[in-house]
């Protein structure tokens, strides 16, 4: 994997999120714990709500538009809703957040 540095961990507040622009739309980065970040598509499978604006709880996010809840680990919608968002490899190194370039490019190609 080739890792790209997209920013500092502290640029995302605890239980907050930020987005990264890519050629094929936005990737959302969620900080669920002091040293835990997940990367997923920013787009809700329901009505394209911006997930990075949702409330982050546990390892889940709730869409700000109509309250769909997604697992940030699997990308699966929770409860009665059926849908899926893409998830991407992310790692933390020395306070920096790294995204996998190949996965992001694969997303652009798709």
């Amino acid at each position: 994997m080739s890792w790209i540095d997209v920013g500092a961990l502290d640029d995302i507040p605890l239980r907050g999120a930020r987005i990264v622009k890519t050629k094929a739309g936005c990737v959302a980065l969620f900080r669920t714990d002091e040293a835990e970040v997940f990367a997923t598509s920013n787009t809700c499978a329901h009505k394209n709500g911006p997930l990075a604006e949702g409330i982050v709880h546990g390892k889940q996010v709730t869409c700000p538009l109509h309250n769909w809840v997604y697992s940030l680990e699997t990308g699966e919608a929770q409860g009665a809703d059926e849908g899926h968002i893409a998830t991407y490899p992310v790692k933390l190194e020395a306070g920096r957040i790294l995204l996998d370039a190949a996965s992001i490019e694969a997303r652009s190609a798709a």
Partner: protein
Amino acid sequence: MEKLVVIGAGMASGRLLEHLFDAAPEKFEVTLFNAEPRGNYNRIMLSPVLSGEKTYEEIVTHDDAWYAQHKVTTRFGERVSGIDRARKVVTSPNGDVPYDKLIIATGSDPFIIPFPGHDLPGVVAYRDLEDTNAMVKASSVRGAHAVVIGGGLLGLEAAAGLRLRGMEVTVLHNTGHLMDRQLDETAGYLLQKDLERRGIKVITKATTKTIAGDGKVEKVTFEDGSEIPADIVVMAVGIRPSCSLGTEAGLEMGRAIKVDAQMRSSDPDILCVGECLEFDGNLFGLVAPLYDQAKVAAKTLLGEDDAFKMRELSTKLKVTGCDLFSAGDFADGPNREDIVFRDPKRGVYKRLVIEDDRLVGAVMYGDTADANWFFGLIKDGTDIEEMRETLIYGPAFQGGGGATADPLAAVAALPPEAEICGCNGVCKGDILKSIAGGATTLDDVKAQTKASASCGTCTGLVEQVLAVTLGDGFAMPTEKPVCNCTDLTHEDVRRLIKSQELKSQPAVWQNLAWKTPNGCPTCRPAINYYLLADWPLEYQDDGQSRFVNERNHANIQKDGTYSVMPRMWGGMTTPDELIAVAQAAKKYDAAVKVTGGMRIDLLGIKKEDLPAIWADLNAAGMVSGHAYTKGLRTVKTCVGSDWCRFGTQDSTGLGIKLEKRLWGSWTPHKVKLGVSGCPRNCAEATCKDIGIICVDSGYQIGVGGAAGMDVKEVERLVDVATEEEVIEWVVAFMQMYRENAKYLDRAYKWLNKVGLDWVKEVLADPAERQALVARFDISQSVYQKDPWAERAVPSEAVKFQPLADLTQEAAQ
């Protein structure tokens, strides 16, 4: 005999020498360098030396006699200057030493944050005996102040030791909770409470600016201009490998000297042990893996096979009375689940992290008796599926049954004279009497004793008394819990936040036994509101516990853009304001809508543009209209006596005064006001949360109107004669609503529960009104600030931009 040179006499190399001499006493002729002017001592035990529980002599592990017995040539107090690998010689100012095999065990250096003044006398690290002695010396002055920078393991041990020596100690920690690498928020919160109980001050999210003093340390200053006195500053913010010898000798380096599983560096004759090495991308700081490394390195030197393996680590804090334990990994990784146990009474918190039916992490506070059992499960990767249900109760529960705590037991244990209803002074005994007299429902008790007949926050308690007393004869009714994170109702939570003085979200989660690690989208905004309403000065509003609109200070639309609506006080505006609005609408390509609340809405603004459009509107003197908040929205007015031939009073002027007083305040749900200049009611004041109708003799104040999902007409609160009285009554009503209502109850819903009569009764007392107004003003001192102006500055505006833009990289 082969010549072995060891650089660094620490815990790892000490253990290595023990293994070597045990296995092959005559194989090596050893020369031991140490920069510290002494041999090996148990560095971990410096904390008991600091606190006075042990002496230095008691923690020495290898004394002169030991070195003599094993014929070790000691070169203590001497810093090695280099390694000449071609000649296989260690160079030193006091004479070079040739080697066949070389061990680098130079450990680590404390990390010193280069604050201005970090080099003043009196600033120390916490690493060796010199540092410890400096701290002991500083503590010998009566009432002296110590500041510890860094709330990790080492920093807290230093703080506890200094406190035991009688110093006034303050710990500064840059993140939100102590020991954030080992503990989650709740455990960090409990630890902080325990430390504070023993007189240690803790400042989290500390923004240290300088260390200052004239010739020596005197104080520490913060970004906000405040300062605290300091006779000594202990910097315990971390360590970094001390490995420059490796770099200069041309060994393969990562963040430290890279070694293989046999502890060999890229030069097979040079081995490393301890904190100066990097293995498989990992650095080391705790003693257990260092001892493993020492064992492997000894084997390698003796020509035997062994390999170093990473293993799970656990942490315990060596502060007497603070019982905490953390092990494994409780962050990161997919498919993980939490089991949380809280016992607020005993201050106990346990959290287990499970992955694929195996325990992978554990955090415990207050009761660590089962820590080793859990640690064993983590290390062994035991399948826990069978015992999952009772796992958190520990080994005693495995294989046997166990009762769960009865949630009603606490109420059952209350004595008869315990007060249940504070508003009406009703004790448990009064309620028991009414039950004995035939009361079987909440309404019966309410009618007979007045318990829960006023503000209603004790309703849950009254019901629990009924349940305990009547058993199956009482069906617990009505009010639902806040959410699935808790069994408590909103009323319970509000009451407990006040009575237990809970002032942070982790405090609520722990003391009220939340079932999730950090809440859910239902409870988080509610708890955030309750905390900021009840503790405006102590609690800090948490943007991450707010819905998108309140976090971004604009209303999100279905396409993900936002609407921006500046305030127009009482519906009045000016040509200049309108020009600014028009220019902003053009510049940011907005749709323009005149609202029902007498303002102008700019729709279709991109999130990235929000700070810029706010700056433009601020420049024209306009502020946020808070059209997105559970707070004061708009004050609708008619033109009143200034223009209207029927107007009886200056309704516009009064509306503006009210809006200027109330804007910026957070409320359980949105609050809309209207002021009409005569009973013709052109401002539609009678369907607002608070509506004022001007009449010849003064003002009629109505409350509890609405024109939303329900349409309600206001009910009369009071008639008053002057504008000043209107403002006092309205502000007092607002504050009463803020302090008592359930989150997301509009005023009319709240009034339905508590009854307008109770509100009238309270507000009829001038002293009560003034007290409510005073509390409202305290809250406004914090919250009446334009959120747009605060976020339009560059340091905040950047947070509205994407973290990174990869569209350029992807294009190449």
